[in-house]
């Protein structure tokens, strides 16, 4: 018990929360960009433009089938060889965005697929252009249906930021490792803290999604 009291000293806690802040920062920025890029790629794959959609689709499949760790390594260590040099935080954001965009693109494409074809036809016959129909009619419905899948992907993203410890991103897991690396008695308290902090963060995310989901289904009814 004494170990826990010592381990959760103000200094250590502050250090942990500094790490949590970096985790949050990298997650939020990556979620923002990967949502935009993922939507664009998902739509691009869905609309079936000759060659273009096929190429986008292949890129999505390529990225989806590689380990995120490898993409992190590549962004940080291999890209400088061709002149793209990024500091550790931007590198992590780029790697997370690339990986999660591809994951989101698939979710979004299947979300659009699930919207009945009649919706598009009806919207077009009411005089909307294809782009208008897509942005006003199809995508909003698709997003509504996708909320649970999207949020669980966001949760994955938050968890995956921990992998960036391998390129020394000073996020939550790395800071915890530094603390227990300096005093073995803090090992268990640090793992407990990690589990609790990640759980609270992600569970809050999933609760928010449930609230949104419920509110939306109420307006639909």
């Amino acid at each position, binding site marked *: 018990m004494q170990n826990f009291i010592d381990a959760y000293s103000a200094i250590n806690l502050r250090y942990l929360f500094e790490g949590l802040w970096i985790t949050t920062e990298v997650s939020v920025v990556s979620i923002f960009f990967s949502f935009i890029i993922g939507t664009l790629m998902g739509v691009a794959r869905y609309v079936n433009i000759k060659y273009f959609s096929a190429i986008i689709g292949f890129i999505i*499949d*390529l990225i*989806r*089938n*590689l*380990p*995120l*760790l*490898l993409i992190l*390594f*590549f962004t940080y*260590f*291999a890209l400088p*060889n*061709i002149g793209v040099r990024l500091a550790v935080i931007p590198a992590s954001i780029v790697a997370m965005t690339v990986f999660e965009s591809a994951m989101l693109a698939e979710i979004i494409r299947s979300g659009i697929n699930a919207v009945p074809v009649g919706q598009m036809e009806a919207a077009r016959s009411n005089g909307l252009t294809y782009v208008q129909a897509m942005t006003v009619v199809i995508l909003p419905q698709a997003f509504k249906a996708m909320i649970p899948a999207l949020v*669980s992907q966001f*949760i994955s993203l938050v*968890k*995956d930021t*921990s*992998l960036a*410890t*391998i390129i020394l991103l000073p996020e939550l*897991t790395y800071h915890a*490792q530094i603390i*227990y690396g300096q005093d073995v008695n803090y*090992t*268990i308290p640090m*793992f407990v803290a*990690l*589990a609790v902090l*990640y*759980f609270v*963060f*992600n*569970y809050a995310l*999933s609760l928010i999604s449930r609230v949104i989901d419920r509110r939306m289904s109420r307006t639909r009814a």
Partner: protein
Amino acid sequence: MFTILFDHASELFSGLGYTLGASLIALIGSLVLGTLFALMEIGQHKWVRVIGRAYVEVVRNIPLLVITMGFYVIVPMFIVQVDGFTAGTIGLTIYTSAFIAETIRSGIQSVSSGQMEGARSVGLTYYQAMFHIIFPQAIKIVIPPLGNQFINLVKNSSILAFVAGFDLMYQGKIIANSTFNTFDTYLAVGLLYLIVTMPLSYLMRFLEKKWKTA
């Protein structure tokens, strides 16, 4: 890239072997564990459901790295010796079991109970109904998500690199360090991952489509 692939073929393929081994063991383990917790989640007693639900929610919200490092670092300090490969495989199993539990729970709930009653009412025995009606449907529902979980496992097993688990990523890091040829090494490693995951993911997509229209 090809020089790396040929010069270090034995390390890379042994790494690929550990990667596939860990993924397969974890797939089987998490299938068992996942089914167990899925059954608990739809169980009769309230507290059984609560335990099942709690397990899934907790595991799903904690990073794989934290679970794996926990097994690698804490368990040997107090309980029993586990090496990196074992710790990594256990971590993968526990992490994946939560996702499989979700898949199976929704799979079971989506096969309506009317199917069984209908089959019984046209004169089939319980086992005939199970084998001819329920099983084929259940397999079609469960195979594609399980295949996707296996692809995830192959990718996620790169976590073994953190705990000296001799997997493909671990070997890749060592080769990159000894040859100083980072770019080509990671290209080669990426290629080996893709050789396994790409065909699988196309197969799963094909099965999904075929069984959905059938």
